[in-house]
């Protein structure tokens, strides 16, 4: 079962996903994002170092998260996306709006 661990770096909140981000796991990520935004934490970095696979539901959770954070005046960035994840983001052109940063540090830098 995929887990999401929350931590902070400066005024950014990092959500680290541990496991495959599929239809079963997507709601977990959505909840974590919703909780963070409700808490007023609107600068989110989703750390995908521990995620080897993402399907369309997982992408949907990320896109929904992006919409939510932006509506709240913030933003969502992804970090440490592995090969399959980068491939899918590139295929769907979603990397245009969900730019994959190499690391959490890069994603947070200059925010």
């Amino acid at each position, binding site marked *: 079962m995929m887990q999401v661990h929350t931590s902070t770096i400066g005024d950014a909140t990092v959500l680290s996903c541990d496991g495959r981000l599929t*239809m079963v796991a*997507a709601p977990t990520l*959505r909840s974590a994002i919703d909780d963070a935004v409700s808490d007023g934490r609107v600068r989110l970095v989703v750390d995908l170092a521990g995620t080897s696979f993402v*399907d*369309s*539901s997982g*992408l*949907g*959770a990320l*896109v*929904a998260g992006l*919409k939510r954070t932006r509506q709240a005046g913030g933003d969502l960035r992804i970090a440490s996306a592995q090969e399959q994840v980068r*491939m*899918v983001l*590139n*295929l*769907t*052109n*979603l990397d*245009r*709006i969900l730019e994959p940063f190499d690391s959490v540090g890069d994603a947070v830098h200059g925010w």
Partner: protein
Amino acid sequence: MSRHDVVERIDESARLRALDALHVLDTPREERFDRLVELVKELFDVPVAAVTLVDEGRLWAKASIGLPTGSMPRQDSVCSVTTERDEHLVVPDLTVDDRFNTSSTLMASGLRFYAGQPLHAGEHRVGVLCVMGYEERELDPAEIRLLRILADWVEVELATENEMRRAALLQRALRPRSVIRLAGFEVAGHCVTARQVGGDFYDWFIARGSLHIFAGDVMGKGIGAALIASSVRAVLRGAARFISIEEAFNRTAYDLDQDLGDTSMFVTAFGACIDPVTGHGRYVDAGHGLAVLLDREGVPRRLVSGGLPIGAISGDHWDAHDFVLDHGDTLVVVSDGILDYFETPNDGLEALSRMAGRGLGAQAMVDEITGFVERVGPVDDVTVVVVKRSAG
């Protein structure tokens, strides 16, 4: 006719409609029901167990052990009486019960014990899960409870049948309605579905003198995704008949904005419009990324763009791009389910190139791809559409 009679008539009409809506009457035997009655038979240690449906004038068994097959007249059946009340009916000895000992069929069978729990479709009692035996017997409260639990299970299975039939109908709404007959072109396509109904759709038609093809994929699986997919297909189809392909996409996105809205749903799609005389084509790629033009040697050109999926961001806009389908060229559009079968998209592309280089026709290519997928086993829906222009 008294008022009471009228009310009863109306109720019975509604009950029969509910029974009809299950689409279970007169359907073939199914393993899941057979297994259920077998389990019931074992649990109660009886010679007879059945799932019966009470139709207007007859009793029909969907699954039964120990009873003759076919229907029996409703008036002679105990199950019909069971459906009169919303609770179980236990008859320890049919031979001494005046409601039943006048039925010659029942008495001739030698059966003495009966226990039945009504089965519901919504609020209506449409049938019974029953057990019967040749010896007098009572049921204790635990057994009555068990029968009710098993009846609940049967109710779920009866309802599922209806959903699967609806799903099959929905699948048909995600496919083209007709074959394309266009001189100089061969158009073929297929979708291999994984276990559940999903969001893949494809379509083709001739409009405004041009050949239009579409393939798309709604994020998600199940009925929800399929419903959105059939909606997208219908809107694209309707729009493209009258306006340019990029306008069709832009209009579709606008129409869908409400449905996709704040949800995490989005739709990847590809559409192309080809002039059959010149071979000149225009395409729109909305995050689909899996369309490739292959020449007769199999040299590929991916038809991509920077277009995002429909629904990814609100108020988005797509542009069409040009291509030419020369004599001997092939256009292949596949859904992302195909990627499960290759290490990288490039590997898949190479496989397609080799197929095109062998001079395969459209149907042959579709057959080869779907055959490959079916052999390995579908993980996700895989859709493939191929347009081949004959050599000059």
